[in-house]
């Protein structure tokens, strides 16, 4: 068996919609180890949230219009095949999740204490009193002032940053092995954002958990991730360590993403780089390389044939026919030009 904490193999997530079936996540494979932070980046709509929610099978509860294919191995079990009962034991306990929108992830009609305690009571054999103490401790851990008062407050009484801390406290209350954080800081202002990131970093060290960190902010990735996967239209186009990704991005899409990070170099203030064209919809996925229509290196082969995933090094994989030629042509320069951002 694998020694990875989580290993996703050829995962596909299909949705039935009015206009037919769409495959929002199309054959992706990756792994997460204990104690590491895997960054997942990509433009809006590329399937980051669908990927993360597929891991806990949160997408097919009600409508039954979602189907999964592939394997999600976690501790010798395939999460796509375990019973619902077993899944419920894992959710919130061994694998927990912080959702993209913290503002609306708390139930408005229950106090935050009630909601944190609910998870604790469910998974740990604690009395109500003990669970309350634990909830207070968890809130204190996330740096919320006077947590013993806060637990009696309702979500609408808290600021965005506070709600995010509550979500983190809740997610970590059962000491999960894996934390899936879906853009946990997007809605927050920069100061709060960096506080929350520091907090997650500290807690990760303390708990030795794996984190899957979803974001479209490459700056954040550079700050806290160990490895990164780059997604484009439901597929992984590049996988690398953070250092490799910034020093030597191989996929033209990744290069575009990195170039479009706003730069505050001081000396020269360039226009913000934007990748040309727009993402095709899931209803007409190109048959060749999905990025071809927006790529300045694309050839007939790109349009006709889907590229396989090449291993540039065992740690660095890329889904592009021409990555070698491109690397020879301009790759070396790219790395030098960007060392400022990557040295984090």
């Amino acid at each position: 068996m694998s020694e990875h904490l989580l290993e996703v193999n050829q995962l596909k997530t299909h949705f039935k919609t009015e206009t037919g079936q769409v495959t929002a996540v199309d054959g992706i494979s990756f792994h997460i180890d204990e104690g590491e932070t895997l960054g997942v980046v990509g433009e809006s709509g590329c399937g980051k949230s669908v990927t993360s929610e597929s891991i806990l099978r949160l997408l097919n509860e009600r409508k039954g219009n979602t189907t999964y294919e592939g394997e999600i191995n976690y501790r010798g079990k395939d999460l796509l095949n375990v019973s619902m009962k077993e899944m419920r034991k894992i959710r919130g306990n061994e694998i927990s999740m912080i959702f993209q929108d913290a503002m609306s992830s708390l139930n408005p009609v229950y106090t935050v204490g009630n909601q944190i305690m609910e998870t604790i009571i469910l998974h740990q054999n604690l009395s109500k009193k003990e669970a309350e103490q634990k909830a207070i401790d968890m809130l204190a851990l996330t740096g919320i002032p006077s947590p013993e008062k806060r637990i009696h407050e309702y979500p609408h009484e808290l600021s965005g940053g506070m709600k995010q801390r509550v979500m983190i406290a809740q997610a970590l209350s059962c000491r999960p092995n894996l934390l899936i954080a879906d853009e946990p800081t997007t809605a927050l202002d920069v100061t709060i954002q960096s506080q929350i990131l520091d907090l997650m970093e500290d807690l990760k060290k303390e708990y030795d958990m794996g984190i899957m960190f979803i974001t479209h902010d490459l700056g954040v990735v550079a700050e806290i991730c160990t490895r990164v996967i780059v997604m484009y239209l439901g597929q992984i186009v590049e996988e690398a360590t953070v250092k490799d990704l910034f020093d030597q991005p191989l996929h033209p899409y990744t290069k575009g993403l990195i170039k479009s990070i706003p730069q505050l170099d001081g000396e020269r203030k360039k226009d913000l780089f934007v990748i040309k064209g727009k993402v095709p919809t899931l209803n007409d996925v190109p048959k060749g390389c999905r990025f071809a229509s927006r790529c300045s290196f694309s050839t007939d082969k790109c349009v006709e044939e889907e590229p396989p995933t090449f291993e540039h090094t065992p740690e660095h994989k890329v889904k592009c026919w021409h990555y070698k030629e491109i690397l020879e042509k301009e790759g070396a320069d790219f790395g030098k030009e960007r060392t400022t951002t990557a040295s984090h």
Partner: protein
Amino acid sequence: MIGYITKRILSLVPVMFVVAIVVFFIVHLSPGEPASVILGPNASQSEVEALRAELGHDDPVPVQFFNWLGDAVTGDLGESIYANAPVTEVFGQYFIPTLSLTIFAQILAVVFAIPVGIIAAIRKGTAVDQSLMGFSLLGISIPSFLLGLFLILLFSVNLEWFPVAGFVPLSEGIWPHIRSLILPAIALSLAQAALLVRMTRSSMLDILDNEYIKAARSKGLKERVVIYKHALRNAFVTILEVIGQTFSTLIAGAVVIEFVFNIPGIGQLIVNSVERRDFPVIQGTILLIALLYVFINLAIDLLYGVVDPRVRFGKKGD
């Protein structure tokens, strides 16, 4: 919470004042002279005028209004011309059957409709959902008096399970009382129940799409807890609103059903009083019904506060 309640109650004062003005003038401006109604067709002109003066009907209209209002505030709505009894007493007597019927119908609707609405929401798109929606559409479309007649025909005339008509007061025993109300309550509540099923379903579906529902599932909660703890409490805000509205509709509908089942309620009182030109009773009854509506709405508002903390803290509504 106390501040919220006081605020809500104080806000009723101007509402009731406007209602009082409208009630007073509607009756005051309608044709018919109370004094001549009281004295009958054979009274002489001077007798009528004497009575008018005695009743204060010669005073300027604003004076009459404030006299009436002043009495009304202290609970004196005048005397019934026909029954020779205080209006409040007459009202109370006719109101009890209406209230029993309405409350019974409301309970039936809520107890039946909310669970059915939840089931339809959970089974959205399945045959169960579609047939429940079909039935509820049918339920909304059947006029209550037709349903009432049909129920009488089937259960009272043919099967003889229930009395054909009439009302048994609570004082004659709880079972006979309920037995006399079952058919009218079903007839009265079906349309409301059907509406409530649809509203419960749609508000549950709305709520189930929320991020916090997914978040609740991600904690490992059982689907039952997700539905009944996390979703229902939120959906209840909308459900309450519908209950508040249907309760008012039920009172109005009760008037019709009372005729079909021959129940001596408010409907009969109003129609009889209009025929008899019993002005104090008409005025008083309308005023008291308005007061009732206002208090039902107040109760519903206060319940919002109980269900939804955002209301309690004055963030929503107002």
